[in-house]
């Protein structure tokens, strides 16, 4: 039994929207990182869906690349969050504005 691609695309769009709202609206850096993961995976889902729909393996390959980059991003992002938290003991991303121009 196969599900129509439109459903996957719809799911992907919903996930992406949740991720965007999470990144923009939440202030907790950990939540923001998780939202970014949602964005990645929404994109991955769309890539795989289209790859299957058009019988073209490039989408699969690209999804693997995205997973790799996501892993690296998570490692760096968590490290930054840990260091920041060690210096400033609060979990509000808006307080971390030392790079203000």
């Amino acid at each position, binding site marked *: 039994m196969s599900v129509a691609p439109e459903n996957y695309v719809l799911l992907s769009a919903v996930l992406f929207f949740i991720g965007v709202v999470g990144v*923009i609206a939440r202030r907790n850096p950990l939540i923001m990182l998780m939202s970014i993961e949602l964005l990645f995976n929404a994109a991955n889902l769309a890539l795989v869906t289209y790859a299957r729909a058009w019988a073209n393996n490039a989408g699969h390959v690209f999804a693997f690349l995205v997973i790799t980059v996501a892993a690296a991003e998570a490692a760096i992002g968590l490290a930054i969050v840990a260091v920041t938290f060690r210096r400033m003991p609060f979990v509000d*991303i808006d307080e971390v504005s030392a790079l203000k121009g």
Partner: protein
Amino acid sequence: MLLYLIWLLPLFGGVLLWALGPQLRSWAGPIGSALIGVAFAATVMQWNDATAPGGSHAVLVSWLPGWSFGLQLDRLSLIWSLIITGVGFLIHVYSIGYMDGDRAFARFFAYMNFFVFAMMTLVLSDNLVGLLVGWGLVGLASYFLIGFWFERPSAVAAARKAFVMNVVGDVGIMFAIFYVVAKVGSIGYADVFAHFQAAFTPHELFLVCLGLFIGCAAKSAQIPLHTWLPDAMEGPTPVSALIHAATMVTAGVYLVARFAPLWSASADARELVGAIGALTALAGAVLGCAQWDIKRILAYSTMSQIGYMIMGVGIGAYDAGVFHFFTHAFFKAQLFLGSGIVIHALANEQDVRRMGGLRTRLPFAFVAMLVGVLAISGVPGLSGFFSKDAVVYGALESGHPWLYAVGVVTAGITAYYMFRLLFVTFFGAYRGDVDPSDLGIRHPELAGIPSTSPAAAASSGRHPEEEEPHHHAPSWLMSVPVGILIVPTIAIGWLDAGPNGPWKQFFAGFFPRASEAAAGAPISETISTALVFVVVAIGFAIAYLRYAAPAALREAVARLRRETIRMPAVLVNAYYFDAAFEALLVRPARALGAWFYRSVDPHVIDAGVREAAWTSQWLGHLFRSFETGLVRAYALSIAFGVVCVVAYYAFAFAGGAR
């Protein structure tokens, strides 16, 4: 192999003495002289190779087709090499005595050796670019040696002036080379002479000759680029003898003689060069009558004699012009070295008004100067007689009666001012203890009278031990070279005696004849010689009456004072050439510079830089306002950008699909 030796030995000497000067101390002089002596011996040993057809030739570097650099010693460069190393050797030996005790003894010989190397590069090169390199290097050596006593501002100014005016000439040669390379495609003399007829129209050929002649005029002190030569006498006297009389300033003569095929093919260029040479001969001789500085008199006489040479090679009498160079190198070197003995003996006194009566005190210098004066005046039997006669008569033979007339008149003026120099310096009573103002010298300091205070003598850097004038005999190192030079000064002229002398045979067939046939002279050479002799005798007689007759000697002081005061301003100021350059070139250039400094620099260049800085600062302010430091704001703007991109593609492809 010897060819490399005569070229590189002086360079080796220059580098050695420059690098090890402080260690060598007083050995620098003998070493430098010996190297030049060896180079002279090597040049003499090359005689047979050089006089063989085509001369001896060695390729140094073959770079591109038509760009082959090499050394070439043929009959013309042989003559120059012999003078450069031979007379150069004698002057080096003389300098050991003259420069003794100078603080920069080794530096002097390093520069002198370097000069010989540069001059050998000039005459040995077988191509135009090598010639230009030598041309520039001799200018550099001249700059070093004029400014040798760099503690004196006047020496530095003279050196700078000489260098700048010489560079004007270098630029002329450079343009000639560009033109030749563009049209002929080769820099080698042989290629140029073989192909220039086909490559150039007569008009273009004249332009090439003109470019080359600008170089000649600057280097050989031809009007209007002559004003550096009198100032160049700021250098030590041996330098004046070697560079500014015997060798470097005659490079222009070499250039015209070397490019004789070009000149032979361009009648316009011959007219121009002949006229400029004659004009310079006359103008220099007239100025020689108005000078009081012994070296400046000789400098103007050099300018005048080079005018003769340039006239000779210009009108097509190449072997006569070169012969005048050959004899002039001996007698003018001798005159300078003789005057150097006088200057040395009088503790750097150069004003002839403060000399007088030196005949008994410096008999050797008197004999040396007398022989030189007789030779340069063209007294029959001495060297200058033969060469000057050949040049002057050559002008008539080639159909230039006006140049001939100028040459004859100049010969008379030459006799006048040279005997004036001799009489004022060596006859009468010694005037060194006369108050300068009685002689009409208004500003002793400005007139070049060295201060006698020990501090000034020490700071001037020359012979600090000589504070009081004392008439000491020259050392043997100074007398022997002068004594040797007396022999060729008297005798060398006989090489060109008669219609078929050794000199004419030496250069037979070497120089091309002018394209049109010689006009034929209206009077024979004997009559011409007699005419020149009469004019010379008149010049001598006037000089004798004015300066050496018993009546003139009795009131010498008053006479010199009167003459100084009444000297026409146009002569004192050397025809206002310097003033004209100042007004026409220097002041406009300064005004232009000041205008650029006041207007262009602050309002265009600085303003441009300022505007660029301000603009980027303003942009920076604008962009930093975007950097809020709020991560969520960044995320929002990224999201907004993504929406924009997606919207664009969505609309674009939706339109395309329809």
